[in-house]
């Protein structure tokens, strides 16, 4: 009986040793696993953010790519709406005269300077227009230029006289620097 128990005791002790040993091994493995170096969360979130930006870029580019035929049509439409170089000067002179007369203004001087734009089917014409009239007429004239179906790009204006003196009808002399565009033929 006692002999039998000794054997059982040994078996129990061996089992216990096995369990404790397994605990130690698993504990060591768990500690190693927890302290092992790994990709930080910050790096992943930075990569995710980079991916989102890249995708937004791609969406934008895809949209531009899809709209390209439409963009080409718009460009053609805009360019064909420009006056042809061959008949440009007469048309511009006539139109500016009409706008000036409608604005009760007198054009004193009109100077043109045509330049070619390389690799484009367009000619740019610098215009220096000197007009004489009161403040309201000058504003009406500029407004008329902006409302015109032709392209007039007003770059700046220089004034001789008090432009803001709108209470009186004092005449001012205004020099407008502008640009218009002709279609090269």
């Amino acid at each position: 009986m006692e002999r039998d128990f000794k054997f059982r005791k040994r078996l129990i002790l061996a089992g216990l040793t096995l369990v404790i040993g397994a605990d130690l091994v698993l504990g060591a493995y768990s500690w190693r696993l927890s302290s092992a170096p790994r990709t930080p969360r910050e790096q992943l979130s930075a990569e995710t953010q980079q991916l989102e930006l890249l995708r937004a870029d791609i969406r934008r580019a895809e949209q531009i790519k899809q709209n390209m035929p439409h963009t080409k049509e718009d460009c053609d439409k805009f360019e064909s709406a420009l006056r042809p170089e061959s008949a440009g000067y007469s048309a511009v002179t006539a139109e500016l005269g009409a706008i000036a007369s409608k604005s009760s203004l007198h054009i004193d001087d009109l100077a043109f300077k045509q330049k070619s734009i390389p690799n484009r089917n367009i000619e740019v014409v610098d215009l220096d227009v000197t007009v004489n009239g009161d403040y309201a007429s000058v504003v009406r004239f500029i407004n008329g230029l902006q409302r015109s179906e032709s392209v007039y790009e007003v770059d700046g204006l220089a004034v001789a006289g008090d432009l803001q003196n709108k209470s009186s009808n004092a005449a001012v002399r205004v020099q407008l620097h502008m640009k218009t565009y002709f279609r090269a033929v």
Partner: protein
Amino acid sequence: MRVRLNLATNALQTHRRFIVGAGALALLGSLTFAGLGWHVYAVRKAEAEFRAEAAGTLGKLAASEQERNELERFFTQPENARLHDRAAFLNSIIDARSFDWTLMFMDLEQVLPGGVRVLNIEPVQVKGRILVRLRVGASSEEAKLKFLRALESSKEFSSVQLVNDKTVNNSNQSDKETLELALVYSRI
């Protein structure tokens, strides 16, 4: 008559303490093993998920990079680059033309006091902002200061910089000083 006799040859030994102690230790060891096992499983699972997520993100990033490179190649093709350049040029004309001079004159009227007049004005569009170079003549110091204060407190004109303030020596002119200013004009 009954007599209770102990006929054992050895003294009775109880193993209860050993069995209870061993049982308790076995239970504790097993619980520890289960806890550690669960911890290892959870850490490994989380790590595997994280690795899968990181690998997925890197894969998507590489695919997107490739897609972008293809699009870049498409846009750098001579025909497409020419169209892009042409559209940008025509848009710059449309932008410059869309500047509302009438509205700017109306806003300028609000800040110009008596005795100050506009001599020169040049608006330029830069990156969607309208930078204005303005030259005015002032008949007196008081009018000049009044104009500068009005400009500085204006909502439409901002980032006002006085570039030059010059006294006019010619006594025939009504302007005693001319001011050159750089400012930003916006209607928001």
